[in-house]
């Protein structure tokens, strides 16, 4: 699943550390989510979206598999 976290962070001038504090996770988690290595839970995805005053769909881009 792709996401626009880096783009939104730059837009809102928020560092990874600041975002991690806002949503209550470690900075490593933000790095992992941002780079697409880890898909967050629905709750965390909601909290991240809320930090940018956006909806989940605006931050996370769900891509269906090609085989489907």
């Amino acid at each position, binding site marked *: 699943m792709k996401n626009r976290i880096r783009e939104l962070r730059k837009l809102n001038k928020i*560092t990874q*550390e600041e975002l991690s504090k806002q949503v209550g996770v*470690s900075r490593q988690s933000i*790095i992992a989510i941002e780079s697409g290595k880890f898909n967050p839970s629905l709750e965390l995805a909601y909290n991240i979206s809320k930090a940018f005053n956006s909806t989940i769909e605006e931050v996370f881009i769900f891509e269906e598999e090609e085989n489907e």
Partner: protein
Amino acid sequence: MEINIWGMIGLYGGVIGGLLGWWFGRQKARKNRGLDELYYHIWQKARSYSWYVTLGALYVFFTLLNFGIELSTAMVLGILLLTHVASWGIIGIILTINMSSAAPLQPSRVKVGLFVFITSIIVFTIISILTTNWLFLLFSIPPNLIALFTALIPKRKDSEVTY
């Protein structure tokens, strides 16, 4: 009945040391909001993978038995315990490093590292079985650590602190 004092100290001292390390590690992680869902994801994955490694070790032992090699219970249990706990910890560290870096791991370095790691384990296991001295397995730790850390730490180009 003869009690092996050093064996008991090593066995239970190891448990106490491990628990203390685990507890202090959690305390430190909690301060940085480290006990989050990624933390549990990583360590559950590591535990899961370590069972595959342990399963592989069990098959190696059964194969050795089929070749007629006699193995003592203490040696087999010791190696299985070491295999399980060490693979759990090492895989957890690898996953943590991989998740903490925006740069992906380099496949060529990973292949070389895993080749050195597996070769080292096999060579020192054979030496320890042939000499019936499991302490030879400890000699495999330095090359394994060097192989893992040179192969699995990705190159960091830029700091991620900036926007």
